[in-house]
């Protein structure tokens, strides 16, 4: 597959990764956590 040569050379920084991680988990009650509660309750 053809890749953009500029993108290919670009180095990803740890700060950028941290930013993505923070955005992913930056919420009070996530759908994921809510799912866990419902899981307990609807187990039967």
């Amino acid at each position, binding site marked *: 597959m053809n890749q953009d040569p500029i993108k290919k050379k670009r180095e*990803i920084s*740890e700060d950028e990764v941290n930013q993505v991680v923070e955005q992913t988990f930056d919420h009070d009650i996530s*759908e994921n956590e809510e799912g866990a509660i419902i*899981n307990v309750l*609807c187990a039967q």
Partner: protein
Amino acid sequence: MKPSRYVIKAPSFNGESTIFYNIRSNVGIKVPSNRITRFKELADIQAFHKVLHKYHFFATPHEEEEVFVEHHTKKQEENPFHLIILPHQNCNFRCVYCYEKFEKNKMLPHIEEGIVKLVEAQLSSKRYKVFTVTWFGGEPLLAVDVIERLSREFQKITESYGVTYVSSITTNGYNLTPSVIDMLLNSGVVSFQVTIDGTKECHDHQRILKGGQPTYDRIIQNLRELSTRSHPYRVLLRMNVGQDNIQYADQHIQDMKRFFGHDFRFAMGFHNIGHWGGENDENVAICPENVTLDLSHRTIDHGMKADPIINKVQAYSPCYAASPHSFVIGVDGMVYKCTVALYDERNHVGMIDSLGNMTLHDERMHLWTQSSVEDSTCKSCYYSPACHGESCPLVRIENGRRPCPDFKKQMKEIVTLMDRQNYKFIDLTPLF
């Protein structure tokens, strides 16, 4: 560096990304498929190391042991105090696949008193931050007054000890009238599970009143009334699927979409009918394959919400019967661990009296809560964080075999479905 045994690789729903998902941490990392196809390629990028370490993506020599210890610590110390209360053990329905015998009726008043005292004693010990109640039966809404009285007491007790109270109900929906809806919503019920077994014709064949009358129209009417309330509850519309109704599933999904598709609180879930031990078992035609994933996709195809599949594979969430903090309490004070094996003596783990004393049979409790501990195969299994050999203690007790859930063999497909259901993965795609 090698990936942890708990990491699996799956394609995203659109096929453009690869997801590395860790069953232990419930964290997934999404990367473009045209750049990364193997874990090694991900691990070779230095900037990702910290996050990969943090969420246990690298294999470590002691990870099996760590997962085992984490599970048992959580099991002993961090679970909520959970009661499954059967306010009534009879039912107004006679579903074709039901395993219950309906020999008992409404909860006795002195058992109600005993439950309140038990809860007071447990929560005053400050061991628990959360108290969860599931109203189950028989049909719990045959004893609305019991639910109302007990809920009022539970709300008072939890408030005085600063404990979070959450409750759910599994009901056939027939008696979910407007006044009952309001009572339940004011009583801390945040989750409703109501079974509709397909189109009107299918449902009215499988889920009939004691006298044989149909039930579909009234349940739909009740649920539509529930949908008019603005409370933040969830409704799981469960379909029990067998050979007799699977061919009508698409029509059923479309009907549910028409009735409830506008309400994000309503979702559909699918469960294979099994031979659960009822009198009619030999006439019930079961589906050999697990239907959950396929029907969940078809639900989304039709524009209806499917129950998030993560609920089935969440880490550290084995069956409630395996928890030492979870008890089923019957109308006469009988204490059980499992809601299915109601007539099996090994499940009669104790009694509660009017003073709130719960006398437990240690050996029987041990059967349910500890029988997986010595199973080294479960301990070393890649699916162990989600199951710990405790997905169904009843299977181990009855047959002496490991209760491996079907989902264990479907994890790749599950991760892809999670992606379709907008599960929050760490999406590193924009960085490439």
